């Protein structure tokens, strides 16, 4: 796995969207809950497709959800 080099706002966005569970988000974007957990912990860098799906689920632009670490 590549080392995480991006930050994300997934946890905050989940809570802002009716406290969506990790499982609900995983089902919505077509991945496992493990992947969501690792994403939130910054331990996994998603593919562009998954990043776009997550951003789309939160009706946000992808750069509002993910940003490069300095």
């Amino acid at each position, binding site marked *: 796995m590549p080392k995480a080099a991006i930050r994300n706002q997934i946890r905050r966005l989940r809570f802002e969207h009716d406290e969506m569970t990790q499982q609900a988000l995983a089902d919505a974007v077509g991945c*496992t809950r493990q992947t969501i957990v690792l994403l939130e912990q910054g331990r996994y860098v998603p593919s562009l497709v998954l990043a776009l799906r997550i951003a789309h689920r939160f009706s946000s632009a992808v750069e509002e959800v993910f940003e490069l670490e300095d």
Partner: protein
Amino acid sequence: MLFPYIAVIVFVGLIAFGFVFFRNVLALRQPKDAEPIPATILQRIAFWGLMAGLLLVAAAAWMVISIGAEVIYDNDDLRLQFTGIVMLGLALFAALSAWTGIALKRRAKLDERDIAVLAQAPMVQGALMLLTLAAWEIGLQETFRGTPGIPVTYIHLMFWSCLAANMLALPIGILIGYRKG
């Protein structure tokens, strides 16, 4: 004959390694206060496939160590039983591979991280094959040094053990991939 003793030492070493490795193998490494995360489907299949594979390898190793490789080779019934164990292992491997292949095609049960883990897993196969061949080389060299040849039984065993190592290495590689996160 040093070979049975070397085989027992290697087997005990593998069991010890397995015990340490498998204690929390299905648990994702999490911060101390975080709740445990359920294993993915591929992770569970790899784990139970590995357990079944280890059981079959243990049965075959037990036969070879307790009865003797040359006795098994010369006795039709015993040879058939040994081949049966190996074939059962092959059937298990084929069934798990078929499931994984179907899941990959449908993309229904595996996500991108599962696929990445699956793609890296074969690296373990090469390493385990080399280790198995090295163990055979050392074992045979020390046992049959100074003798005119090696009984053909051991060549068969070498082949079967390489096959077993190859099959077990895939689930091991998958489980290592998940442990790394």
